[in-house]
């Protein structure tokens, strides 16, 4: 625990030094980044050891005892799992950021960016470590605010400022529900300690429990990005610098999932509808997230929508697990939670890999528009290969890690469908169908993204002149890609590591029997053997092909274009045209806008087509709702005269009223 505390201190001090040294940009950047890298390296080793040992550490110090606060931190296997992912991704992103931030302007702004980055890492770690509601809320709030500063890093751009504002409002609205939850729990138990909340559940009425569950899902779901609370995600993630997007998308949104997992057991034994609820949220977020991603043109915006999709898969896993718990089907419960938890880690790995890759592309070409890129694999072979690994992993394809977590959810659902009663089989079957649809659509989306950005011919001069990223930026991507392969090939080991975490999350007796049953069913062993076999088979066929072709003559020419004499790069299929059939099929939800200028006249010269897919939930749900609130509150505008004397008067009146009320209560 002392090691983890010193990690937090190093992060804070390093960030402050980066600001103080901002007169020397190189030094400041190096201090800011290296303190994060070193702290994360230590933190990763400590948390990985905790996780592997399945151990728990606890640390307490007095802090604001009058209001029930305490500096109470602990790391159990659940925390250790999230911490390990956090430190790995944040350390690698910092290494990447060291070179990535180089090309921006230096000075105070760069120094501040490192301060915010280091504080973001520290506050996320604190969120995961804290066991006291007050400490948790402080860390939660610090996390929200420093990430707001990172989102508005390029604050001269209007879209960055707008993104920051949307993010700030969304996160605080979510926090309101978190407050309600925590205040209720504090009132029930008279304590702000999470440990004291553990037995509240049995005393709650079903109605109160239900409302608390809703508060939990809405409050933390806003941070996690459940549809329709996701609207800040596609705005905020693209606006931040790429290594920050990687951290926000890979880790920060997972703190919402962590908090749900941490606090859900306090609410006691889950009724069936909680599982239903999460399964439906999961399918909705997954399918809508990937559909909106398909329709995007901006690489980072597309990736941000994919975070919504993957959060959906995680929620689906947790929902399957909850259904298993409430119907006392331990196999379903264990596999559902295991899939959800492993997907948290997997998504952290491949999504940060993809964001880092997208940042490398943006840095090399100066654009994030998919349709202005192309042919980058030849110019950036390392980045391209790493990006391909990430793309295949996020599409859930074997032999990579995304498949392992989805397999767990599939297996759990399948087991429930086979043996469970109808109330379990129907939602679980829905989950299987939803996951299959999500998988197919995600593969479509990433075939589009990788195909248009990295393959074919460059569509613009910027893309043609792109250069490979420096090694310090490539190395983090290579490590993340290797991790994707590692988990993909090591499914039994991954499940073994998850066991202590699962034992802490699932409130069912005799879980060890289920663990043994799962380990005995040798499905994970088979999955990893098949993954190895796939690699071996691919290499064998490739070797056969190579050997066979070495004896033949090989020619090169232009792509077959049906005899057309002058092909140009602009004639290639674009991302919009690639996605059009699917976008058209789901136009009822996507509502893409098209601006089409038809070619006219006998010798048509110019024509154009613009498509834009805005977020339906933002346009149709939140904008009207906020406008309504705005209109409603404008009746109170006369209160706001701008004269200080009047405001003092308001304060006096309020105080008087309170005084009268207090006297009355006493009497």
């Amino acid at each position, binding site marked *: 625990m002392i090691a983890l505390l010193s990690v937090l201190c190093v992060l804070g001090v390093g960030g402050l030094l980066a600001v103080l040294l901002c007169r020397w940009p190189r030094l400041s950047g190096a201090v800011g980044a290296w303190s994060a890298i070193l702290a994360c390296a230590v933190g990763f080793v400590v948390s990985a050891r905790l996780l592997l040992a399945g151990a728990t550490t606890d640390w307490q110090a007095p802090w604001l005892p009058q209001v029930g606060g305490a500096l109470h931190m602990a790391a159990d296997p659940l925390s250790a799992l999230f911490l390990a992912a956090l430190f790995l991704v944040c350390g690698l992103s910092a290494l990447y950021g060291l070179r990535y931030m180089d090309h921006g302007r230096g000075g105070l702004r760069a120094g501040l960016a490192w301060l915010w980055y280091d504080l973001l890492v520290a506050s996320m770690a604190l969120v995961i470590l804290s066991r006291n509601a007050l400490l948790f809320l402080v860390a939660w709030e610090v996390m929200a605010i420093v990430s707001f500063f990172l989102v508005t890093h390029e604050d001269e751009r209007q879209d960055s400022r707008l993104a920051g504002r949307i993010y700030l409002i969304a996160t605080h609205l979510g926090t309101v529900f978190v407050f309600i939850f925590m205040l209720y729990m504090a009132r029930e138990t008279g304590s702000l300690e999470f440990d004291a909340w553990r037995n509240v559940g049995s005393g709650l009425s079903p109605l109160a429990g239900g409302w608390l569950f809703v508060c939990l899902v809405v409050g933390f779901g806003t941070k996690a990005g459940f549809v329709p609370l996701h609207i800040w995600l596609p705005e905020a993630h693209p606006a931040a610098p790429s290594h920050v997007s990687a951290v926000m998308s890979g880790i920060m949104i997972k703190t919402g999932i962590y908090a749900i997992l941490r606090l859900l057991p306090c609410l006691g034994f889950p009724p069936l509808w909680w599982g239903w609820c999460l399964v439906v949220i999961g399918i909705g977020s997954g399918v809508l997230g990937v559909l909106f991603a398909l329709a995007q043109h901006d690489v980072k915006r597309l990736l941000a929508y994919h975070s919504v999709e993957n959060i959906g898969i995680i929620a689906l896993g947790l929902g399957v697990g909850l259904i298993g718990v409430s119907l006392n089907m331990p196999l379903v419960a264990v596999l559902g939670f295991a899939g959800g938890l492993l997907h948290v880690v997997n998504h952290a790995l491949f999504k940060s890999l993809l964001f880092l890759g997208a940042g490398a592309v943006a840095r090399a070409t100066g654009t994030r528009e998919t349709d202005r890129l192309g042919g980058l694999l030849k110019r950036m072979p390392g980045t391209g290969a790493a990006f391909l690994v990430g793309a295949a992993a996020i599409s859930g394809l074997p032999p990579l890690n995304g498949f392992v977590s989805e397999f767990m959810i599939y297996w759990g659902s399948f087991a429930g469908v086979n043996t469970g009663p109808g109330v379990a089989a129907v939602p679980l079957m829905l989950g299987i169908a939803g996951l299959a649809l999500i998988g197919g659509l995600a593969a479509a989306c990433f075939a589009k993204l990788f195909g248009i950005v990295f393959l074919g011919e460059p569509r613009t001069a910027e893309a043609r002149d792109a250069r490979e990223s420096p090694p310090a930026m490539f190395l983090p991507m290579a490590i993340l890609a290797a991790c994707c392969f590692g988990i993909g090939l090591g499914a039994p080991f991954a499940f073994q590591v998850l066991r202590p975490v699962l034992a802490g999350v699932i409130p069912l007796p005799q879980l060890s029997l289920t663990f043994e049953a799962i380990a005995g069913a*040798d499905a994970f062993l088979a999955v990893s053997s098949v993954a190895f076999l796939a690699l071996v088979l691919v290499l064998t066929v490739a070797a056969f092909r190579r050997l066979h072709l070495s004896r033949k003559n090989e020619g090169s020419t232009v792509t077959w274009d049906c005899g057309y004499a002058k092909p140009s790069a602009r004639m290639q299929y674009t991302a919009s045209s690639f996605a059009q059939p699917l976008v058209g099929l789901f136009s009822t939800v996507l509502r893409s806008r098209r601006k089409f200028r038809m070619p006219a006249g006998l010798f048509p010269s110019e024509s154009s087509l613009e498509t834009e897919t805005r977020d339906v939930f933002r346009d149709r749900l939140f904008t009207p709702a906020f406008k309504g609130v705005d209109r409603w509150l404008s009746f109170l505008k006369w209160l706001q005269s701008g004269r200080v004397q009047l405001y003092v008067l308001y304060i006096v009146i309020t105080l008087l009223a309170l005084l009268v009320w207090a006297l009355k209560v006493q009497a």
Partner: protein
Amino acid sequence: MKAIGLIHYVLALALAPLLLGTINRVKALFAGRHGPPLFQVYFDLGKLLRKGAVYSRTTTWVFRSGPVVALAATALALGMIPMAGQAAPLAFTGDVFVAVYLLGLARFFTVLAALDTGSAFEGMGASREVQFSALAEPALLVGLVALGRLTHSLSLSPAYAGVGPELWSAGGVSLALLAVAFFVVLLAENARIPFDDPNTHLELTMIHEVMVLDHGGPDFALITYGASLKLWLFASLLAGLIIPVRQGPEWLDTAAALGGVFVVGCAVGMVESCMARLRLLRVPQILFAALVFSALAFLLQMR
């Protein structure tokens, strides 16, 4: 793993191109032609392997890896498909999902190889392929999971071993619905009429054939062989459902299962002879219908 499973696997690897030949022969008979020899696909493969290769200067290693990954993944997926009620060489809990996702891997690389050429035609084919497969995948998985519930098993091999006359009399409606759904998915996934016309001459209207337009020589041989393996895979999924002949000596069961696969091939040929290709806009509707059939087969067991 029993030896019989391996024998079935080797038989599948060897006979898969014959299935394509059978379909072509049936189509020729329906059209009143004599048609190419049954073994024409083998001759084609041999000829392609003897040729050299020509690559577009636009392409990268992704283009070259497309056929390789597609063949390897399909061959591996085929190893999980049981035949004649015997366990497949690779049979384990949840193998359904692994098999379907391996096919997804094959498709992913085929699509990327198509996009690597930078040709608008191949982009079109790739775009259609991902659209239709994204809809076919849920139909197939829901169907296979429903079959799992019918037979109380979590793996393909015991599930197919459990299909028999008793199951047909107990849950015949479900099985029939599943068979229809699987047949639709077979036609869509293997680019057959009415979803795609493997013999059309117009690149604009193709799906699968246009994606592999730039592959030639040995690469195209890998693709053709991979495609025939995939067809065999789906045909044996369907044949195991509709022709559950069991209890005889093993060689008789095997012969019946092989016969079933070729019966499915003949059915494909007949459908191709009697139908025209659908408009592309209609395809998603048919695939949704297949999903509904699978879901109905599942819901009927909820009674």
